């Protein structure tokens, strides 16, 4: 119902005036429900220089239900699952937190913020979170290694 007009508008806005560091395209032109995002990490973060591929899948009920977001590029980060899904756990994407006026651009802004400043207390990868808190040097090293290996 609410779907198309809203989505077309969001897509147009995102392409004309993309959220910081983001390039946005449809995965294929037939399907407005799958978005391909390339996100450049903030230059003052440990991931600087990395470009991360993020896939956004919108449910049919969008915007009443939240989008789904997966890192397609491997990233060493306490808040991104270290598996083939690369899911990021974001409060605003939980069904009970999501509000229909929220926009994909807002989500991407938040993703980029969390990318630059991990939230170890809200982690999906406990081991990485521990390391982030207790051995930042080692964490930074691996994170940078991974950027060089996977995100260039």
């Amino acid at each position: 119902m609410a779907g198309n007009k809203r989505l077309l508008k969001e897509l147009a806005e995102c392409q004309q005036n993309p959220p910081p560091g983001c390039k946005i395209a449809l995965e294929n032109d037939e399907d407005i429900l799958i978005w391909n995002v390339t996100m450049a990490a903030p230059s003052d973060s440990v991931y600087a220089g990395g470009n991360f591929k993020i896939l956004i899948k919108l449910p049919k009920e969008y915007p009443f239900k939240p989008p789904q977001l997966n890192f397609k590029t491997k990233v060493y980060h306490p808040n991104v699952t270290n598996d083939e899904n690369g899911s990021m756990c974001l409060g605003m994407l939980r069904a009970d937190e999501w509000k229909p006026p929220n926009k994909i651009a807002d989500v991407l802004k938040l993703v980029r913020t969390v990318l630059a400043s991990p939230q170890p207390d809200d982690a999906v990868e406990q081991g990485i979170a521990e390391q982030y808190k207790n051995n930042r040097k080692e964490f930074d090293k691996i994170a940078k290694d991974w950027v060089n290996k996977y995100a260039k």
Partner: protein
Amino acid sequence: MPTTTRKRKAEVLTNITDVFAEPQRKVSKVHPQVPKDSIPREEAALPATPQTLTEGMDSDDDFNSVASSVDLGEDMSSSVDFGAGESDVDVDDDYQDDGAFDTTAKDLTPQRKHFEVDFKVYSPQDIQSQQDTQVAEVSNLLEQPTEATAILLRYTRWNKERLIEQYMDDQERMLEKAGLGQEINQNPPRLEVRNNFTCDICCEDGPGLETFAMNCEHRFCTDCYRHYLTQKIKDEGEAARIKCPGDGCGKIIDSKSLDLLVPDDLTDRYHQVLMRTYVDDKESLKWCPAPNCVYAVECGVKRKDLNRVVPTVHCDCKHAFCFGCSLPDHQPTPCVLVKRWVKKCEDDSETANWISANTKECPKCQSTIEKNGGCNHMTCRKCKNEFCWMCMGLWSEHGTSWYNCNRFEERSGTDARDAQAKSRQSLERYLHYYNRYANHEQSARLDKDIFHKTEKKMTLLQSSSGMSWIEVQFMEQASQALQQCRQTLKWTYAFAYYLARNNMTEIFEENQKDLEMAVENLSEMFEKPTDQLAGLKVEMLDKSSYCRQRRVILLDDTAKNLRDGNWQFNVELS
């Protein structure tokens, strides 16, 4: 004390019509569905913090007075009065709707049984009026409109005291936290048509768009608002705490706004969900888990009491379930042990699979015997050997005092030394109990099958012989007794599995054995040819009544010792 209940004790089962009249009276007494409006709802609606069993209690009187002072509302508390050591009260028959038919004067004891707990059954209307009463009362007190009060009460999970305290403490903060903002008294919610408006959800911006906003002024088109609410209620099962769809807004949708926006069928669903939440929020209330049952049960037994009491309650729909864990009645076994046992059985299901087989070999002539009734007394068709399905031992020895079919004999020390022998013995021990547990479960099913077959024949008998419907009901009663006793027996084996062996175990096993024999004797009668059944009525009634007696004895003793912490288990209860 109503005289009807007192008199009831003296009533002797002389005439079956009387017995059938009785449960009717009982139901209306215990569950006040009848003259709803004439009853002051207040007490039922606002249960004082119920007292419950505590660790320190040590005498029967303590137990009774404590358990019965659980506030169950008007008529229950008025009919149950264990005041000042008076014990001559017959509340026991109040909740035994299952055992309602057998009560002859001789087996009615005046005191409430140790395995019984006070409870009360509520219809959805009862629950609605409980809520309404509380809302009205608090609404007066806080001088807030009922809608807002309802939201506040739901926010504090119907904890009236906490709400009042926090509200008095800091009214604004409380309202804010509950999602009400401060201006709740103004502006009833209404739809508005706007011309220069873009809905932030669907981006619709045409002229004459119908819109809605609560007084937080987060305005959206009604289509979107409606869609949002529908999804919350239907897909996410929410009601009490649906927030305004506005970004970052915590204001909770009140039911007036809701009524304005969503279609009737959804409003019904919304109120259903609200009701669910009300019951779920209260520790003293639980929904009856029977499929399609709409009743809720109130019981004062708390989570922390569950190692001392097994709170079986009986819903008006006839389903008996445990108030502690909502599983079907599992007396005498405490909830924790039930959970452990069920898990163990699942984990070990493969080892134990062979048991559920319906066929075994005759221990004497090895011909295959099929079990098709619930009775464990088997007679081999070929060699006429009579044996026990459970232990394969001679049936003739089962009635004797020295034979123990139910007890697991630990093998003496020598052969259990090495690890393998030990694990073998522990498996054997488990299988001994599981075997019997599973068998009673299966037998109950088979008994029921046989009963249904018989029931059809009884109906035929009725029309051919002119026996009345009432006259054939003894079959139904016997079948019910059988089902109920098997249910209990089944759980006695889980109980026994976790029991550490001491002198108390033997008493338990004696009781178990007595009940088991009584049950097998009754079960056997169901396998008699139908044309003999009519003539066996008196015997069958006697046997049914004896079974119930044995069950009560077992449950009562077990419950008393559980309450007093006398049982020693071989696992931690916690």
